[in-house]
């Protein structure tokens, strides 16, 4: 019924009629027809939890689990029946006219359903389901349990909104909403000042990116002829209707937003601090979903980005810088969550690097695999933290014997992250490295019909390859450092830790299985694999396997793991990395980047610019207003004194005075002498007589 409503509404309005509902080869596929259920369920859950959650026996979490469970099943069904192999359908659009804004143009609201959307649906819904289940145990006893689930499901809904957006405005809406949910969840325990500070830092830093994003949206809007619709913009860009300068500018601005949201240099500083939030929230938001929004956005608009070589190069270079910087930072952290946070930044940089060299399918594949194992790692970290009541690695050690399930699942996640065959991360990381190498060594590869497609410069692609290999080494190193220190050796903490309850270990096991198996759908030998499902930028090709490159990357990962094990298995009291001296200090202080921001941006603005603004507000603006008031008062006084008192009263008084003066003179006519009166009377009579007779 609702679909027919959509049909009706779509048939009525502007742009939506261009993309009226088209059914694929499998007519009447129920998953597609009612795909909006996936979008709607989390929002309904939010409202329900918010309204009646407190009264439910499990505090609202059962609603969340049920909603995300149904959504996950639906999205898996959607993916399998519509976008895999021969069952693939055309992209469908279901939207209704949201608001018209003159000239017959209108903005639609709804969903664009293609392979990319379906895959993202699966990722978001399933991981959100795992997080919901996990949080039921992790957040047990918290006073704001129900609020947590409200925001969590709101976040899930917002992310789905972003992913399904057929036009930039809806994407922007989802973008902002996930930002707000992130803020709410980071600052969940706001009673501690540092948590609310971290939340504000997240908001402000991502906001800086978001300004660029919004401007970029509008640049594209105007450049593509006043349309927000993504498909239309892509068509017009490919048809050459947008000038290269405008296009590059728009792409760079959009990338600024992506850099903010997805924590790339120089806007990554918020992500480590965001670990102040509850760990399950971190695992959902800052590992798998929100931070991938930037990558998703670029993938969605990939045909536009591919046209501009400048934009692609920028993305790739910043990605390389970020991946190396953050990997180095991860090496010196003592807090488990921070290691994982920097690791996330580094892996996101991998995805951006893939996008930068034109390997859109590889980027999304890595996004997909990374979601599984990073969420797993975070949840594992949460399990550990729950057990020892501390984030610090120094308080852990030898956890293997206390928490076996956590140990094995964490191991699976670590190997997946390091990129060891046949775990999930291996396939996706290798595809990226292979594509980068190929792009770098085959010049002109990206040109299609004279139009630059997927072309970054050759040296950039090779830079990406080199940086990627180095980062793979570093990733393996710091992860093994973490793993060995936490799970092997002796326990250095307080008390006796025990394994976490089933509701925590259950999701861990599911994610562990996914970390092992998920990558297999993207095997390069399977030509109907992951790349064909998502078809980023319309490209259906899957990279061919290059055994040499695979060997190099496995070597890098293996040596990293070995080095980490060697250095830390003996649990040295002093971190061997401190031998790096000044470099170690630099890393511990995070390249002094935070201090730089504080000194160069925050302090001047807060202490000088804000003060100046305050001064302007008080003196200039208020001065103007007060001045206006004072002027009006003075005017009033002036008018009163001059006009009213002098002029008007003067006139009135003057008349009185004049009358008095004249009468003062005239009254002397009244002498009282009757004869005088008689004389004058006769004079008058004579005059009148003369007048009447003569004239």
């Amino acid at each position, binding site marked *: 019924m609702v679909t027919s409503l959509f049909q009706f509404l779509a048939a009525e309005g502007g742009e939506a009629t261009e993309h009226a509902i088209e059914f694929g080869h499998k007519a009447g596929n129920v998953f597609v027809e009612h795909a909006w259920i996936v979008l709607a369920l989390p929002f309904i859950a939010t409202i329900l939890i918010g309204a009646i959650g407190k009264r439910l026996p499990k505090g609202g979490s059962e609603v969340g689990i049920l909603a995300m469970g149904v959504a996950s099943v639906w999205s898996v069904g959607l993916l399998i029946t519509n976008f895999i192999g021969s069952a693939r359908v055309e992209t469908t659009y279901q939207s209704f006219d949201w608001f018209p804004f003159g000239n017959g143009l209108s903005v639609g609201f709804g969903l664009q359903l293609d392979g990319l959307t379906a895959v993202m649906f699966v990722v978001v819904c399933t991981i959100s389901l795992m997080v919901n289940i996990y949080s039921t145990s992790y957040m047990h006893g918290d006073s704001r349990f129900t609020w947590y689930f409200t925001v969590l499901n709101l976040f899930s809904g917002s992310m789905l909104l972003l992913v399904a957006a057929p036009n930039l405005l809806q994407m922007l809406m989802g973008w902002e909403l996930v930002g707000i949910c992130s803020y709410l969840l980071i600052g969940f325990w706001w009673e501690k000042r540092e948590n609310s500070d971290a939340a504000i830092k997240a908001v402000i830093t991502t906001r800086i990116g978001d300004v660029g994003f919004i401007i970029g949206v509008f640049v594209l809007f105007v450049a593509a002829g006043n349309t927000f619709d993504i498909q239309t913009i892509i068509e017009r860009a490919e048809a050459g209707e947008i000038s290269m300068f405008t296009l590059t500018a728009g792409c760079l601005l959009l990338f600024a937003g992506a850099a903010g949201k997805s924590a790339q240099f120089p806007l990554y500083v918020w992500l480590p601090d965001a670990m102040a939030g509850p760990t399950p929230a971190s695992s959902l938001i800052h590992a798998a979903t929100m931070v991938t929004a930037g990558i998703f956005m670029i993938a969605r608009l990939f045909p536009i980005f591919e046209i501009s070589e400048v934009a692609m190069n920028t993305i790739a270079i910043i990605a390389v810088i970020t991946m190396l910087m953050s990997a180095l930072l991860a090496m010196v952290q003592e807090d488990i969550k921070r290691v994982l946070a920097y690791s996330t930044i580094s892996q996101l940089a991998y995805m951006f690097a893939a996008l930068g060299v034109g390997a859109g399918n590889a980027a999304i594949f890595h996004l997909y695999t990374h979601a599984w194992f990073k969420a797993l790692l975070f949840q594992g970290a949460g399990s550990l933290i729950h057990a020892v009541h501390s984030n610090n690695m120094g308080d852990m050690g030898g956890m293997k014997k206390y928490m076996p399930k956590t140990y094995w699942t964490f191991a699976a996640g670590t190997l997946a992250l390091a990129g060891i065959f046949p775990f999930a991360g291996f396939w996706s990381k290798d595809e990226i490295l292979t594509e980068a190498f190929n792009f770098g060594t085959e010049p002109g590869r990206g040109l299609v019909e004279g139009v630059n497609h997927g072309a970054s410069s050759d040296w950039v692609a090779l830079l990406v390859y080199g940086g990627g290999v180095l980062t793979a080494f570093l990733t393996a190193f710091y992860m093994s450092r973490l793993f060995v220190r936490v799970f092997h050796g002796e326990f250095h903490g307080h008390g006796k830790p025990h394994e976490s309850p089933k509701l925590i270990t259950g999701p861990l096991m599911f994610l562990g299985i996914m970390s092992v198996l998920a990558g297999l759908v993207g095997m390069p030998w399977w030509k109907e694999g992951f790349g064909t499902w998502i078809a980023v930028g319309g490209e259906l090709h899957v990279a061919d396997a290059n055994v040499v490159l695979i060997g190099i990357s496995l070597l890098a990962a293996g040596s990293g793991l070995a080095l980490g094990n060697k250095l830390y298995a003996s649990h040295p009291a002093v971190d061997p990395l401190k031998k790096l001296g000044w470099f170690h200090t630099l890393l511990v202080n995070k390249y002094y980047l935070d201090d730089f921001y504080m000194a160069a941006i925050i302090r001047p603005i807060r202490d000088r610019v804000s003060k100046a603004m305050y001064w302007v507000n008080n003196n200039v603006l208020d001065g103007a207003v007060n001045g206006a008031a004072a002027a009006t008062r003075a005017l009033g006084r002036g008018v009163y004194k001059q006009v009213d008192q002098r002029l008007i009263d003067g006139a009135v008084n003057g008349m009185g005075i004049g009358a008095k003066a004249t009468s003062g003179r005239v*009254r002397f006519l009244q002498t009282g002498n009757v*004869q005088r009166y008689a004389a004058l009377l*006769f004079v008058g009579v004579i005059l009148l007589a003369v007048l009447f007779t003569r004239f």
Partner: protein
Amino acid sequence: MNLAWLLTFGAFLFSVGIYGVLARKNAVLVLMSIELMLNAVNINLVGFNAWFADQTASGQIFSLFIIAVAAAEVGVGLAIVLLIFRRRKTIAVDEVDLLKW
């Protein structure tokens, strides 16, 4: 005789009467001057009656009335003069000027 001469005579008396009304200080003299003016009117009326000679002799009748009224007026006027004299001990008209500015 010429009517105009008679009327001129009447006009002369009238003018003299005006002079007397305006120029004399004693109230009784003013009354006398007023009598002069009234008599001038009388001579006019009688003259006109003699010239016109209508059946009702209205000119003469009118002059009779004037005589009667003049008499009454002099009586009342003198009564007033007496009152003023009692009050102010003077009947100089220009000294009875209380009703002034």
